[in-house]
């Protein structure tokens, strides 16, 4: 049993992820094809200016993009291109979309990584403290603060931080300096406000989840046993309660990454001018640069898929009690 069971599970989970990926690609394909605009649209003004026949030129451009083929052939081409890493051509930046993504992903990555670390570390600490000191004034204060953190629109928080710390106090620059080397103190300083902006919403969530997960476990019999055998309270909380509360937390943190953090990072990058994928997509929207906008959404979705897969597998590995059938 043991090992082979886990291998079967991973294979099953992989196949499932591939099916979902197909679904995701199909939906974006349908959206783009059903949508009212075509690649020819952006040339129409030029065409009219030069006195050419718009219908003729549109047909020529459609043929170049393969839009005159039957829809199923187009669908197969689209799939094939995605898998070969041919994600299209970004005309607003004059480079292949895949190159554009390769140069900009690191900025999104550093923002998301630092924010998640900040939120998870502080959130879990406060959550544990709140649970251990349940119904004290500090606990109520933290609960209230975390409600505030969840409710504050994070793009507005970003603007407020800029207003207070950059415009009024002049402690930080209002815009992210792209010339800074990635691994430097100055770069870290430039990321302080963005990390607080993106991290606050997550932080508040983690406080609440940690608190309730800790409270659930604090009432269990094994805690009483641990205390009864004379373990110091530190060990009881740190080793026994926290380790058991940790598992559901991992899932929630991972799930948050996809559902909340990517959207939040998109907005945070735009507010602070960080040249990550969100900013790239934002610029592409106003240049009507189709393939880039589609690519950024697809990458976000594939990452979620990958993260879900990894979470599930780690989870089964960490908790031997879990058996999926």
């Amino acid at each position: 049993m043991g090992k082979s069971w886990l291998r079967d599970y991973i294979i099953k989970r992989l196949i499932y992820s591939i099916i979902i990926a197909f679904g995701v690609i199909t939906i974006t394909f349908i959206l783009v094809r059903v949508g009212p605009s075509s690649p020819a649209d952006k040339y129409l003004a030029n065409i009219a200016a030069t006195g050419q026949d718009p219908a003729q030129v549109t047909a020529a451009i459609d043929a170049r993009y393969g839009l005159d083929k039957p829809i199923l052939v187009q669908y197969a081409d689209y799939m094939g291109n995605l898998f070969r890493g041919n994600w299209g051509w970004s005309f607003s930046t004059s480079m292949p979309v895949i190159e554009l993504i390769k140069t900009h992903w690191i900025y999104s990555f550093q923002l998301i990584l630092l924010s998640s670390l900040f939120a998870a570390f502080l959130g879990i600490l406060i959550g544990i403290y709140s649970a251990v000191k349940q119904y004290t004034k500090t606990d109520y204060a933290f609960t209230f603060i975390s409600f505030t953190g969840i409710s504050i629109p994070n793009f507005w928080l970003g603007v407020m931080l800029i207003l207070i710390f950059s415009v009024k106090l002049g402690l930080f620059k209002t815009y992210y300096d792209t010339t800074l080397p990635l691994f430097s103190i100055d770069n870290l300083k430039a990321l302080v406000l963005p990390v607080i902006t993106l991290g606050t919403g997550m932080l508040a969530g983690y406080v609440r989840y940690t608190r309730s997960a800790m409270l659930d476990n604090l009432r269990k019999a094994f805690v009483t046993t641990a205390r009864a055998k004379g373990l110091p309270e530190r060990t009881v909380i740190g080793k026994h309660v926290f380790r058991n509360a940790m598992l559901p937390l991992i899932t929630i943190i991972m799930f948050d990454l996809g559902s909340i953090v990517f959207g939040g990072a998109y907005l945070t990058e735009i507010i602070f001018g960080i040249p990550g994928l969100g900013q790239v997509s934002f610029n592409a929207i106003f240049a009507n640069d189709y393939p880039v906008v589609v690519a950024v959404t697809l990458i976000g979705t594939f990452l979620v898929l990958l993260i879900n897969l990894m979470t599930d597998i780690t989870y089964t590995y960490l908790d031997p009690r879990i058996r999926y059938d």
Partner: protein
Amino acid sequence: MIRGLQDIIRKVRPHLRLNTRLINYYWQRTKRNKLAVAGLSFLIFLVALAIIGPFFTLDPTEVNFEEKNIPPVGFGIEQSVYNIETDEFTTKEIHGTWRHPLGTDSKGRDMLAMIVSGARISLLVGLIATGIAIILGTIIGVLSAYLGGWADNALMRFTDVMMTFPFFLLLVLIVFIFGSNLAFIVLAIGLTGWTGTARLLRSESLSLRTREFITAAKAMGASDNRVIFRHLIPNVISLIIVIATLSIPGVILAEAALSFIGLGDPTVPSWGIILEAGQHSLNTAWWVAVEPGIMLFLTVLAFNFLGDGLRDAFDPKSNI
């Protein structure tokens, strides 16, 4: 089409009779949560403001460059004013006036009037889009649980696919492709935001389906329609109310965030649209960005408090 609709209304109406005794019971339980009551009070105030407010405020679209960038009452700022006769800039101290209690924006429009009309739009967006999402989610969830087999499988895999998309990124893509008309934005949020509801209602209906009262109803010859509308839906209605209350703030924020990045409907001044404009005038008029943000924040907080209170009130296991 109309006949079908009438048919549905005729079928559903008797089940929508209000059970006043139960409502009273839940109200008594909700009332004990002070934050939930505070949230509810704020929301009632906000709805009243959105409905009757626009009749009392100035015209939110009226542009007046003579009165631009006036701060709210109680604040004063230094503003450089161009004097056309001497061709010089002079600094002048400007104070808030009661004519514009919340100040004016860079085009001299009254902020109070804009906030009030923005409340109307943001609330409508929240309610309608959540309505669409909840109805869609309920139909898919209940149907999936009730039909079972391959239909359940297909519906749930579709839900999985939709759930994999990061909500905001999908929304950006759809609005980018189909254009930023407000009606369309609302529809897009509704059509993408149903997945959580569908999952929850499926699992809830699955556990209800095996309960004795459903089996009894079936044994007595109740039709599928009757079982679903008369027995299943009434038992998940409290869950639906909680999900709706907790989803509305997310929807309002989604619209505001779309507007904030310039994908909103520029013809309709929602709070997000005002905030987006204010973001560019932080140096000259900070209040334009601050005021709609505070309203957004308070509204979301109120819905969260109320939703949390309702969840506890509806939960028979919680002691409150």
